């Protein structure tokens, strides 16, 4: 799995925040954690199209009326990050959890790419 940095047309038009991620690979698949604070479950969009995984989320948090911003480190209302999945991953079996603003994605490897133990018999 690698990240796609080539911007699409939509990516150029709108500025987005890039959520920090951890990507961990083990023998059976890949686990991705992404920090998306301020995104509610219904404002999170996950898309797998061919070999492209897109994570998008809209930031929404309650603000009292008439609030004036003094200092802002999260200054854009949208997160977006695109990854390219490699061939051995199975995009059909992606599972996702979203809890306290952390997205956990599990992408298992396709059957043929699963590790297999080969028995060595000594004659």
């Amino acid at each position: 799995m690698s990240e796609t940095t080539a911007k699409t047309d939509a990516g150029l038009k709108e500025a987005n925040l890039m959520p920090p991620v951890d990507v961990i690979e083990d023998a059976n698949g890949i686990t991705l954690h992404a920090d998306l604070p301020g995104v509610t479950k219904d404002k999170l969009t996950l898309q797998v199209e061919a070999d492209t995984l897109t994570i998008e989320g809209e930031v929404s948090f309650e603000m009292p009326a008439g609030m004036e911003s003094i200092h802002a480190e999260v200054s854009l209302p949208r997160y977006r990050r695109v990854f390219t999945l490699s061939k051995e991953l199975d995009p059909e079996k992606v599972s996702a959890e979203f809890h306290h603003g952390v997205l956990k994605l599990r992408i298992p490897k396709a059957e043929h790419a699963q590790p297999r133990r080969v028995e060595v018999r000594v004659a």
Partner: protein
Amino acid sequence: MMYRTLFPRDMFAELDRLQREMQHAFDLSPNIRGVARGGFPAMNVGSTAASVEVYAFAPGIDPAALDVQIEKGVLTIAGERTSALPGKEDKATAHIDERFSGRFRRVVSLPDDIDPNGVSARYRDGVLHVSIPRREAAQPRRITIQ
């Protein structure tokens, strides 16, 4: 212990990461209270006539483990976030490691007119929202002309 792949599959992604890390290393902060940009959690501060609103973007933390304090007009938010990265004994490789882990502490100095007794704090969707009301006397009041 974590390993990065020796042969990056995407050169541009790798360069982008490098650039980000360089930026992180050289971004010297002029703030006396430490890192202003790129610190964890990221913070937004807003103000209304009646209150000061502080938002800390701290996802993936047990709200009970968050420590929020106000002392002498200084708001401190502290806590700890556990790492999702594999341990030494796990047969796993970390390809990207960007998320913060470990103990954190961030401090905001508040204006003089706040009322520390009326503070409320909520944690929702990974955002800690601390609302600190201003003192009644300090709030703007319209004076009727007779």
